[in-house]
């Protein structure tokens, strides 16, 4: 009886553990089963490299390159904006922050991490979009403000907590002796931090950037709300563009069953492939840091 219970529960635990694998397999199965026929019908080359997305036309075309390009541009922009701010903030938190300020700043960053994307998106609509519109008007004489730049700024803010928190723990993980050794050689505090501690933490910081990229590529609601969502090849950061994630949200609600709907699911596959690449990159970076 006793033995039976032990063995029974071991199987229960093992079965539970198997659910994660099962879930992942199911995600792939359902997405590929529903999306791949569309890719096959359109043709993989036409689908990925086609620059026209006109699903409702009499002779529809399904090219997702505009969305792929927009996702990449917006992510790059978010990185350019978010990474420097994030890393410097992490350095500040780990090495320069007075205790009283830390007690306030750290929860603040955590709050930033917890704010729902729709709230960010809404903030984007009411603040960032009008702000970008002003700049855009001044520089190009036009533009609604719902643009790639608005999405970049918003995502730059949204990935901040990821970068700050993970970089901070990477910086803190650097042995105190490195820093002390540098001080003992007569280097200043700032110099010790930037030329000794920071390089030692670089793989952890890099990992935080990759996670930030993952978050930016996968973000949906906030981008939909501010990016304008025109399905055309991105032309300028002041003009609208549609990310991969947005493509799904926008059209899924009215897409009729058939090629249109399936091509949206295929967009999800493209997104999944992106995330997979990012995951592999992340694994390689973290493995490396464990090696050294």
């Amino acid at each position: 009886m006793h033995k039976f219970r032990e063995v029974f529960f071991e199987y229960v635990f093992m079965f539970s553990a198997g659910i994660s694998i099962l879930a992942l397999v199911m995600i792939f199965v359902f997405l590929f089963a529903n999306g791949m026929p569309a890719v096959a019908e359109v043709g993989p080359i036409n689908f990925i490299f086609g620059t026209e997305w006109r699903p409702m036309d009499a002779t529809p075309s399904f090219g997702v390159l505009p969305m792929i390009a927009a996702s990449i541009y917006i992510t790059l922009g978010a990185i350019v904006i978010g990474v420097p701010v994030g890393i410097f903030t992490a350095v500040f938190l780990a090495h320069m922050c007075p205790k009283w300020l830390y007690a306030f700043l750290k929860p603040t960053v955590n709050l930033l991490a917890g704010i729902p994307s729709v709230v960010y998106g809404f903030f984007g609509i009411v603040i960032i979009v009008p702000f970008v519109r002003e700049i855009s008007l001044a520089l190009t004489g036009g533009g609604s403000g719902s643009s790639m730049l608005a999405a970049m700024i918003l995502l730059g803010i949204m990935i901040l907590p990821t970068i700050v928190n993970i970089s901070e723990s990477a910086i803190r993980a650097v042995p105190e002796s490195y820093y002390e050794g540098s001080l003992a050689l007569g280097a200043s505090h700032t110099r010790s931090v930037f030329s000794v501690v920071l390089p030692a933490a670089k793989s952890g910081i890099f990992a935080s950037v990759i996670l930030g990229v993952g978050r930016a590529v996968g973000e949906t609601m906030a981008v939909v709300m501010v990016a304008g969502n025109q399905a055309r090849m991105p032309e300028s950061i002041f003009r609208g563009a549609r990310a991969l994630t947005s493509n799904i949200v926008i059209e899924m609600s009215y897409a009729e069953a058939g090629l249109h709907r399936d091509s949206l699911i295929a967009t999800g596959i493209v997104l999944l492939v992106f995330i997979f690449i990012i995951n592999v990159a992340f694994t390689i970076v973290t493995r490396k840091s464990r090696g050294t």
Partner: protein
Amino acid sequence: MRKIIDTTLFALTWIFAAITLLVLLFIVAHIVINGVPHLDARLFEFAFTTENVSMMPALVSTIFMVVLTLLIALPLGIFTSIYLVEYVKKGNKFVMLIRSATEMLAGIPSIVYGLFGMLMFGQFFGFGWSLIAGVLTLGIMILPVIIRTTEEALKSVSDGYREGGYALGAGKLRVVFRIVLPSAVPGILAGVILAIGRIIGESAALIFTAGTMPQIPETLGHSARTLSVHMWVLSSEAHHTGEAYATAVVLLLLILVVNTAAAVVAKFFITK
């Protein structure tokens, strides 16, 4: 020259940290200042009408969503972690597979979860847009969060406890459930709080699974919109800006509560 670089870096650090702080304060302040005046008692009436877009049904749906999702994901996640930490031997292939699977799951964007939930639970299982489809989808989505934190918590339980238990002749189950698991509760709780935060904030995975029905769901089969989804619907309709601000305030408040709870638990964990 070196002096200049030092000073510049020092200044930059302060400036960027200040930017982070100011951006957040600005977001929070903007939402609170514009939202609080719209926090009308009418917004907390149980009936949603087109004249009064009450957030109360969405609030109730959010609570349903959180409780039901945890009901599914918590046992699964804890059992998985128990299996990973207490049962399998190092270097086991199955474990490496589970680890990679949970890592992969953690990285998948919520919109892809939404698609998957719609295809599998909504269409294949025929649940349509329903609370249950949303719950199952989010259950899978937060599973990696629960597994990772529980695993860490179990690992941090001193082996001395396990040895002590076995040395008294207790079986594995008894050691796990009576000694190891109770000691890991604060860590597990931290994971649960993190997961609650994610469920509250989620919208992309829910639009195509739980749908956007603004009433309190009567059964698991009814569509339900959570507060985040409600917020999304409102903000895409231009004439509900005030209500959207008010909803944002409530969401911020919820997240603040969740974060504070997490901090309290963490503190308890450390001092213990």
